[in-house]
C-alpha cells in the first residue's frame, strides 16, 4: 500500500486556498490598515470642508425650509437640501445630500462638510464591517481557511528552511511579539 504523501496534500491545500482566498485576504488586509488609522482619517469617505461668512445671519434663526434653501443657494448648494434643525439656540444644522452645513446664526460663521465615497476603500470597509448574515458565514470560512493556511504554511518545508531550521526562529519571534506587547503594554 502506497504511503500517504501528506506533504503533497498539504501543498495542494495551501496553494488552492491561497488562490481562492486571495481576494478576501486583500479585502481584510487593506480595510484593516484603513480602519487601524481611523483616528487619523475617515477610511470610507473623503471629507471636504468649506468655510463661509454669512452676512445678516439672524434671518436664519427660525428659518423655514424655503428660507434655508435660500441660504444654500448662497453657498452653491442648491438642490442639496434634505432637512434642518437647531441643535441649540443660535446654531442651525442643515442636512445636505452627502454632507451637512452648520451656521452660527449669531456670528454668521458657516461650515460645510461634504462627503464623497472613497473609490476603493468605501467598499472594502463596507465588507469588513459585516454587511449581512451571509457575509458573516463567508468571512468565518475565510477565517477558518486562514488558520489552515497558517498551519499548512509552517509545516510545508522540511530541513533547514522548515521548522527544524530558521522556520522555528521566525515562528517563535512572531508569537513572541504579541506576547511581549501583552506583557508590557496591557
Amino acid at each position, binding site marked *: 500500500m502506497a504511503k500517504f504523501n501528506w506533504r503533497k*496534500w498539504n501543498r*495542494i*491545500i495551501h496553494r*488552492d*486556498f491561497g488562490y*481562492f482566498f486571495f481576494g478576501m485576504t486583500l479585502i481584510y488586509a487593506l480595510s484593516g490598515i484603513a*480602519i487601524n488609522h*481611523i*483616528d487619523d482619517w*475617515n477610511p*470610507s*469617505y473623503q471629507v471636504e*470642508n468649506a468655510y463661509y461668512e454669512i452676512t445678516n445671519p439672524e434671518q436664519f434663526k427660525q428659518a423655514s425650509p424655503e428660507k434655508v434653501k435660500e441660504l444654500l443657494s448662497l453657498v452653491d448648494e442648491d438642490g442639496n437640501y*434634505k*432637512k434642518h*434643525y*437647531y*441643535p*441649540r439656540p443660535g*446654531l442651525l*444644522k442643515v*442636512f*445636505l445630500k*452627502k454632507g*451637512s452645513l*452648520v451656521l452660527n446664526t449669531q456670528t454668521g460663521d458657516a*461650515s460645510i*462638510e461634504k*462627503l464623497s465615497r472613497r473609490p476603493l476603500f468605501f467598499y472594502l*470597509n*463596507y465588507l469588513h*464591517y*459585516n*454587511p*449581512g*448574515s451571509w457575509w*458573516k*458565514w463567508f468571512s*468565518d*470560512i475565510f477565517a*477558518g*481557511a486562514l488558520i*489552515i493556511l497558517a498551519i499548512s504554511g509552517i509545516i510545508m518545508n522540511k530541513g533547514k528552511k522548515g521548522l527544524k531550521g530558521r522556520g522555528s526562529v521566525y515562528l517563535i519571534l512572531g508569537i513572541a511579539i504579541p506576547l511581549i506587547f501583552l506583557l508590557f503594554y496591557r
Partner: protein
Amino acid sequence: MLSRFSLKIYYCIERRYCVSMHCEKTKSKTMKKLLFSLAISSLIWVSCGNQEPKSQGQQAENQEQVAAVAPKALDIDNFDSLAPNLVDQLIEISGTCMHTCKHGGTKMFLSGNNPDFRVKVMATDESGNFNAEMEGSDYTVIGILDEYKVDNAELDKLEADVRSGEQGEEEMKHKTHEGEGNKEGEHADHQGDDQDQNQGEMQEQLEQINHLRARLKESGKDHLSFYSIQAKSYKEKK
C-alpha cells in the same frame, strides 16, 4: 512513400493518443486535488455551525409552531410612554436619521418631531451597518426593542469599574448614550461630531454616574431605563 506517410499518421495518432491519455491522467489527478480542497472547505463550512438538515417531520412540526409576527408600531413622538410595554418585542419605528456612528456605522440615532429626543438604533448582522449618507433622511426601522436598566447597584458597579479603570465606563457610555441634542455630548457642529468618538476622562465618567444617580433620585423609581433598538432591517422613506 505511402507507407512512410501512413507511419507518420500512425505516429501522430499514437502520440496524440498518448498525450490525451496523459492529459486524462493529469486531469483526473487535478480533479482529485480540487475535490480534496473542496472537501476541506466544506468541512470548515460544516464546522462553522451549519445545522443538520431537518427531517420532514421536524419541518412540519416547526411550521405548525411558527406564526408570522407583525412588528408593533412604535410612534417615536410617544416613545417614552409606549416603549415600556414593547420591550423585547418586534417593533417598527420611523424617524429622521440624525447621526450615524462614524466608526463603522454600527449605530444611528432617530428623531421625530423633537430633534432633541433621539432613539438609538444598533446595527446587526441582519440589518447591515449604517452609513454617513443616511443622515438627514427619514427611515423606517424594524427591530427588537432593548431595555438597559440602571439601578443603584448597577451604578455602584459602574463606579467601581471606572475607578479601577475597567471596561465598565465605555460600556456605560454606550448603553446610556441617548444622543439628546441639547446635552453636552450632542454633536452641535462638525467639530462636535469628532469629539463624540473620544473616550472621556475618568472624572467625566464619574460626573456622568453622579448625574445618573441624581436622575434616578428625581425619577422616584428604583431604576432608569435606557432603550435601544436592535435593527433587523431598515428602509428609507421616500
